[in-house]
């Protein structure tokens, strides 16, 4: 049974007299809906299906089996998700998102850090990229709330983290055995290791189970111990919100200064109009600008909310830097699917020529034996010998580096190809720039030094030539106090339309090097406050 067929009889008609229409049921949309649902009539429209929680083990099997690709795990792909690539850098978009109730957090890894103070003031502090129109201090209380909402396990042992007012809601996961090996090498080099915040339960939290160690966090946690946005979608519904799945919004109807309706399609081929007093667009960093571009009109010929001409521009992602190898002793990898130690020591050394970067100590270096067992032309004793040979002594470090916003990195519409509904598909034109590549080199330098101090034989380096995106889509509807320089204002409300907000990493003017979702969540909670105030 495919997820889509489960609910053919569902009523997908619009909600009368809705106050708020949220487009997108990922964490951004779900948090906004949850916050507003108790006091307002909220309707959430999502392009993808509701996935049956009972299918998660079967999805886990897809994650392990070689016959399924990663996008298959959550049914991504096909005409619905068609896209084009035109930049210097290939972007594997369908590995980088999930469409459906819960959004991309169904697939995500769940690492949740706050941005650093300097990330909000890149131009002033580092001499590159624009400053945000808000500061860390503006977001600080929302970060704390976001940590409670998502359920973050963390500790206050990180001397490089920005100031915080209270402990994390759950204790951090204890360091791994391999962390203890790294610790010796780091100590020798004067490098600090510390815990890392996980949106994953180190103990039971919010009626959700503690982590039980399935080890397949990315792309699916069968236990529900890893946060995903179905948590807030469910809660929003309990509070009275209406959630309509398989309802891709085709365009936003509008007059000069207000959105009047979200026109959405349903599986039966019909189109419906959802009206509301306020609209919150939360479709992720690629589909959000696409929807605005698809909503062009005589009044807004270059796309809705695009008087500044920046819709879709400045597409950014974080880039991966890593080094891996083997030791001549056991390293005990692949028991769990997340990491427990990190290093932010070098983050704030960033300047014009080298960006911020963070370092991660992997608990899942080297092959997973069960996955290895399913490929190859051997079995029996030969297979076991191969698995034993392949498993046991791997170590690796990863890291993310900042990419600056660039005019030649953008999301547009491909005029030559349409999706299953006849709409032009998104065209990803991704370019990363030399500063990001230099930052990868710098991260590799540190990683290499640590692995050498550990006595590892280095087997691979993900450097500037072998890097890839972290699947964080940012920058495409940037925030600016100046209506000529950005799509949304400091409250994430569009400059052009009074009743339209954007909750997404698409509003980030610069990206920092921290995974974005805690910041997305904090901004979403702030959007909810602003919407409530203005309704």
């Amino acid at each position, binding site marked *: *049974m*495919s*997820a889509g067929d489960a609910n053919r009889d569902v009523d997908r008609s619009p909600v009368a007299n809705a106050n708020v229409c949220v487009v997108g049921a990922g964490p951004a949309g779900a948090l906004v809906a949850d916050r507003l649902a108790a006091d307002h009539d909220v309707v959430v429209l999502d392009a993808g299906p509701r996935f049956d929680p*009972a*299918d998660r*083990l*079967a999805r*886990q*099997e*897809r994650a392990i*089996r*070689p*016959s*399924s*690709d990663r*996008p*298959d795990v959550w*049914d991504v*792909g*096909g*005409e619905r*998700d*068609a*896209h*084009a*690539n035109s930049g210097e850098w*290939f972007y594997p978009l*369908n590995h980088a998102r999930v469409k459906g109730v819960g959004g991309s957090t169904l697939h995500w890894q769940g690492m949740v850090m706050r941005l650093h103070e300097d990330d909000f003031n890149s131009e002033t502090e580092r001499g590159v990229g624009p400053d945000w129109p808000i500061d860390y201090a503006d977001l600080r209380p929302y970060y704390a709330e976001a940590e409670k909402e998502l359920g973050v396990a963390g500790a206050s042992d990180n001397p490089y983290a920005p100031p915080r007012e209270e402990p994390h809601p759950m204790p951090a*996961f*204890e*360091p*791994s*055995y391999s962390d203890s090996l790294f610790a010796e090498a780091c100590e020798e080099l004067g490098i600090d290791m510390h815990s890392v915040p996980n949106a994953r339960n180190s103990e039971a939290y919010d009626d959700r189970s503690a982590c*039980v*160690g*399935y*080890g397949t966090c990315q792309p699916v946690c*069968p236990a529900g111990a890893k946060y995903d946005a179905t948590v807030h979608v469910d809660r929003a519904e309990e509070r009275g919100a209406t959630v309509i799945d398989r309802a891709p919004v085709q365009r936003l109807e509008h007059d000069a200064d207000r959105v009047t309706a979200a026109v959405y399609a349903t599986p039966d081929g019909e189109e419906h109009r959802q009206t509301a007093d306020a609209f919150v667009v939360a479709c992720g960093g690629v589909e959000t600008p696409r929807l605005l571009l698809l909503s062009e009109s005589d009044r807004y010929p270059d796309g809705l909310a695009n008087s500044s001409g920046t819709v879709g521009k400045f597409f950014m992602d974080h880039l991966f830097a890593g080094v891996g190898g083997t030791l001549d002793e*056991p390293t*005990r990898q*692949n*028991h*769990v699917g997340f990491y427990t130690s990190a290093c932010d020591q070098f983050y704030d050394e960033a300047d014009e020529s080298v960006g911020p970067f963070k370092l991660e100590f992997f608990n899942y270096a080297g092959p*997973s*034996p*069960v996955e290895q*067992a*399913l*490929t190859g*032309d*051997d*079995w*029996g*004793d030969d297979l*076991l010998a191969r*698995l*034993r040979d392949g*498993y*046991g002594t791997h170590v690796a470090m990863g890291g993310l580096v900042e990419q600056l916003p660039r005019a030649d990195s953008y999301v547009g519409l491909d005029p030559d*190809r349409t999706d299953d509904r006849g709409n032009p598909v998104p065209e990803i034109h991704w370019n990363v720039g030399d500063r990001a590549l230099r930052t990868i080199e710098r991260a590799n330098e540190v990683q290499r030094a640590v692995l050498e101090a550990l006595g590892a034989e280095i087997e691979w380096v993900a450097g500037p030539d072998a890097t890839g995106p972290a699947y964080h889509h940012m920058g495409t509807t940037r925030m600016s106090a100046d209506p000529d320089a950005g799509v949304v204002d400091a409250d994430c409300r569009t400059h052009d339309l009074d009743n339209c907000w954007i909750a997404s990493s698409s509003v980030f003017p610069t990206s920092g090097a921290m995974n974005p979702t805690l910041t997305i969540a904090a901004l979403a909670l702030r959007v909810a406050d602003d919407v409530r105030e203005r309704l």
Partner: protein
Amino acid sequence: MELTRRDAVAALAAVGATGGVAVAARRSSDGDGRDDAEGTVGEGDPDGEGDAIPDEATVRAAMTAIATVVYPSEVDGVEEFVDGFLDGRLDGSARATELRAAVGDLDEAAHSWYDAPVAELSEADRDGLLREVGADTADENPDGTLAERVRYHVVNELLLALYASPTGGELVGLENPQGHPGGTESYRRGPR
């Protein structure tokens, strides 16, 4: 190393009974075609074989016989383990039917080449049979060619059950393998 029914239960806890989402190898076709793959979905009976779906006893006997080939010689208790695992997997779902059909086709090949069902072949012949149908070099595919289906529903089904279970993991030195909810202690423990 002794496999037990508890291992079978653990293996089922890892991969679940079959039901649930359709397992057809759904391939994503991305915008630029780079992710495209063959992934043709069969019309139920791609080879024109497999008319007869074997009964459950035949399936169990054949699966156990194959398990003794694809499992390492140092594991004992294979029959009990496979039986326990199949208790959960042969659940009447469409996928269980596909599994049974794949076993039926393999049994048919055994009859025509060796004049006996899989379960009655010597270990060497069982190994030879799997290689002759091409299950050693085929990529698994739940609805592909005979080789691909045998790889998916028979060989990899059994290997997945073993190596996602704690005992199978331990053979490799990993008592909490991927797919097994083995808690959050083991990643912290050093080698024993």
